[in-house]
Each structure stands twice: as structure tokens, then as C-alpha cells.
């Protein structure tokens, strides 16, 4: 490795910048969703392994710790979805002015918050279907 300073070096950035925050949170939520993919495949493999194996897996999947994980996954999905769409719009060459970027950052936070609240409400009112 070279001794040149290589980007990104988080310790020197001003963390209060909305540009940096929206970007790093998108990356962090992406990593959380990658972990969520493992959980999804674990669930699919349990279903494929038959009713008895699925019952055993449900005992694991309904642990309190994992319920917190599902809430986190809904939150990270909501954010990554909106932040990802923001990136796609940028990639088309639109919304790159500072004022537009500030507005879209606020929209991403607001939109993902509303979606997250809506999804949690839906999940809670789905009626005894929690795994």
C-alpha cells in the first residue's frame, strides 16, 4: 500500500455535513441489508427443509433480539430505498445543484421516516403473524 492519504478517511470529515451523513448512512444501511439477505435465505432454506425444520427455525426467528432486527431492517430498507432513488436521479444528471441536493436530502429523511412508520404500523396491525 502507498502512504498517500486515501479517500475516504472518516476521521477528518466534518460529520455534521448533510452530504456526508446521507452518503455514509446509505452505505451503512446497505451493509445492514446485506446481513438481512442472510436472514432471508436462512428463512427460505428453513421452509425448504420441511415443516419440522421450519418450526425449529421459527423458534429462532421469533426471538426478541431478532424482532428488534426486523424493525432495524424495515428502517434501513426505507432509508436505502429513498437514498438509492436519490442517487439514481443524480446519475441521470438532475438535482445536483446545492439547493436541490439539500431539498432531496430532507425528502429522503422525511420519506424514509414516513415509510418506516407506515411499515411498522402495518407489521404490528397484521395481527399475530410475527414469526
Amino acid at each position, binding site marked *: *500500500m502507498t502512504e498517500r492519504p486515501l479517500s475516504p478517511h472518516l476521521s477528518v470529515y466534518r460529520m455534521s455535513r448533510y452530504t456526508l451523513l446521507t452518503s455514509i448512512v446509505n452505505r451503512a444501511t446497505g451493509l445492514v441489508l446485506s446481513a438481512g439477505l442472510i436472514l432471508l435465505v436462512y428463512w*427460505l432454506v428453513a421452509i425448504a427443509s420441511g415443516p419440522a425444520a421450519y418450526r425449529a427455525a421459527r423458534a429462532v426467528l421469533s426471538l426478541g433480539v431478532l424482532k428488534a432486527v426486523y424493525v432495524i431492517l424495515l428502517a434501513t430498507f426505507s432509508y436505502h430505498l429513498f437514498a438509492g432513488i436519490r442517487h439514481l436521479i443524480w446519475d441521470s444528471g438532475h438535482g445536483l445543484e446545492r439547493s436541490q441536493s439539500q431539498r432531496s436530502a430532507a425528502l429522503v429523511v422525511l420519506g424514509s421516516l414516513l415509510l418506516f412508520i407506515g411499515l411498522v404500523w402495518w407489521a404490528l396491525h397484521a395481527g399475530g403473524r410475527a414469526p
Partner: protein
Amino acid sequence: MTKSSNLRSPLGRVLGHGSAKEGVHHWWVQRLSSVALVPLTVWFVVSLLSLPAIDHATITAWIGQLWTAVFLILLVLTGAWHSQLGVRVVVEDYVHGSGAKALTLALATFFHIVVAVAGVLAILKVALGGAG
């Protein structure tokens, strides 16, 4: 002879691979997979929350529907692909030392392939009626 305004060789310009040596392929497939994942993930979350129950019989009947299996397979494959591309850049940015970087990248790639294959095979087994 026309004078070039940049320092790239004519061959380099034609190949279009830039300083990353692989052009825009990574960038492009990351975008392509993200566009596909918008409807796929929304469909999955909505479907999951709409299921009347999540016991084995209900879930296997749901996956047994042709289009459920198709979309689930697309979700797992596209999700694993997008995740692999994303994890790759995170490793490239934050894991230092060429040895550690290459090892982490290899492990992450293997892991994503295992997750994708296991997911697809599980869906196929259920969809084809092999999950009892």
C-alpha cells in the same frame, strides 16, 4: 496532426477503461441492479406483510405460485449481486493492505455466491413441491 487536449492515449480513449482499468462496468451493474431492486423489494415487503399467516403450509402455498417463485428468485439473485457490488466497494475503501483486501474480497464473493445459490435452490425446492 491534431493535438489532443488530454493526456490519454488514443488506445486508452477507445478502450474507455479509465484509471480503474475496468471502465464503468461496476458502476453500471450497480445502477442496473438498484433499478431492478426497487420494484422487487417493494413487492417482497408488501407481499410478506399481506400474507394471512406465516405457517409452513401458507408459505409453501405462496411460494408454490409461479410468479411468487419467479420474483423471489429474481430478488435473491439481484439482491446478492447488488450486495456483492456494494460490499466490494466498502472493502476496497476500508480494508487496507493488499493481502487483507484481496482475502476479504474473496471471502465476501464466496459468501455471496453461497447465499445466492442456497436461496435459489430453496425457492425452487419449495416451488416444485419438495418441501413436504
